């Protein structure tokens, strides 16, 4: 019996108005794998990621997490749309890191990390605080626990955001261009944290423009253009011997 993929995207399509952003996108990610999604701006990479955790509702197709359709429940033969609390429970399994961090500006760094475990999982503040300190240590920011986000650099904020997501102990981490809003000298720290995560066996989907990172860390690279998956495969093949002309021309521009 073949293993069930942790994440399956099946024929997902999405349009904003008359603009078709995603067309029949399908892909599988198995537990422990890192999938990097590359492609030019406007190719639908971010929308794909947002369809995975249903921040955007796909027009067609389904996303499955651990074999269960995201946003729906089986009842007999029918698929019933989830209530917002059922969807929230499913989203807890998927962490997400945004391009612009979106830390809660009114909470200290430590409270940003404990917020989910305390409010959503009902963990007591003390235990949550201890776990948060472990995570902050892991991302190298234990000394900033009492600071407010606005006093942190972009790279530090992004690492806090990663810690905040990890605090929910997700099965899957989604990264939406996590280093695109950072000054070049701060990119490295964030990528190092992500490398560590991958090494620890976290399943990750990373939308990125960091080709070196994709080449080193990814198990699978997907090249998207015009809302379609143009090419997918192991990084050696996509970067080393791309089959499609569009992939080749994109890579020649960014490498």
């Amino acid at each position, binding site marked *: 019996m073949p293993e069930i993929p942790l994440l399956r995207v099946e024929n997902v399509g999405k349009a904003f108005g008359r603009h078709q952003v995603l067309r029949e996108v399908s892909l599988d990610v198995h537990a422990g794998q890192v999938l990097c999604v590359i492609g030019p701006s406007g190719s639908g990479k971010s929308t794909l990621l947002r369809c995975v955790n249903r921040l955007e509702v796909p027009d067609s197709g389904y996303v499955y997490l651990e074999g269960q359709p995201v946003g729906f429940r089986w009842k007999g033969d029918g698929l019933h749309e989830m209530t917002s609390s059922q969807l929230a429970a499913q989203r807890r399994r998927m962490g997400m890191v945004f391009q612009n961090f979106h830390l809660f500006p009114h909470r*200290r760094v430590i409270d940003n990390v404990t917020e989910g475990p305390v*409010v959503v999982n009902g963990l007591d503040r003390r235990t949550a605080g201890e776990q948060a300190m472990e995570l902050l240590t892991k991302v190298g920011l234990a000394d900033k626990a009492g*600071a407010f986000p606005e*006093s942190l650099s972009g790279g530090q904020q992004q690492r806090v*955001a990663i810690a905040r*997501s990890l605090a929910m102990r997700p099965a899957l981490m989604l990264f939406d261009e996590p280093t695109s809003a950072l000054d070049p000298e701060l990119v490295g720290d964030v990528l190092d944290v992500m490398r560590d995560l991958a090494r620890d066996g976290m399943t990750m989907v990373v939308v990125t423009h960091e080709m070196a990172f994709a080449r080193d860390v990814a198990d699978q690279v997907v090249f998207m253009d015009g809302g379609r998956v143009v090419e997918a495969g192991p990084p050696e093949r996509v970067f080393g011997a791309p089959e499609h002309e569009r992939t080749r021309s994109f890579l020649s521009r960014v490498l």
Partner: protein
Amino acid sequence: MTNAGSPAQGTAHGGGFRSAGGARRVPLRHPWWWAGGAVLVLLIALFARLLVTNENMRWSVVLEYLFDREILGGLVTTLELTVLAMVLGLALGVVLAVMRLSANPLFRSVSWLWLWFFRGVPPLVQMVFWFNLATLIPVIELGVPFGPTLASWDTNTVVSSFSAAILGLALTESAYAAEMIRAGIQAVPKGQTEAALVVGMSRFQVLRRVVLPQALRIVVPPIGNDLISMLKFTSLVSVLATPDLLYSAQMIYSRNYRTIPLLLVATIWYLVLTTLLTVAQQQVERRMKLTRAAAGAAGDGRRLRFLPSFGKA
């Protein structure tokens, strides 16, 4: 050629350039500041003379009644009215603002209608209307709609002049607060909601833990303004014979005919309260800035435990 003389030297020798170094400087004079200031000082002096020398002011009477028991009782009533109306108004305002931003068109319309009505009807008209509610609905009943009654009260015992006043003030405030809070909610970036959703919060948790705390911070200054207006709007309740600050003063001068001194007593207290509220508002705003600035500079959790943290559970 180029190092023989800098451009400045060259032209100075040529006679066209005059160096400003070492010259006497004359600051700009402002004769109109002095003229305007003199006029103002004169006006202030005239006003002060009126306050001090006009016999009808009767400062001795003012002093006598400033801490009168009736006046102080009225002061407490005024404060009670202000706080209650404000708290109720804000609570309703939050609900109305959330309804106004709801995806459900029925919620949106009801909220719009409420705002339209309670912003349109003057609070004074409302108060009189609520006070006379008994003539419209003599008995208030609690029960199953269109079904049996479980409990009932005589309207006149439920709606006293005090509660009529609270209703009029709070409902008007709710409409204004709703608009402010809506603007505050809309000023919170969409990314905040998304970040909270992906942590697994429910819609309600997102609102309560992430959006509202930030929205309310944004609206602290206008709410402070509203609180100060509310303090003064409470004087309207004197028409319902609710013994607030103004009505207490009126009751006293209707007995002793010392109208101006007693109005001065009320004026002084209103000014004192307004000043206190203004200072409190500034403190709240300053503290919100300070907590963050201090934490930002230190970046150290241990030293900051004792600082107040807003929005904490």
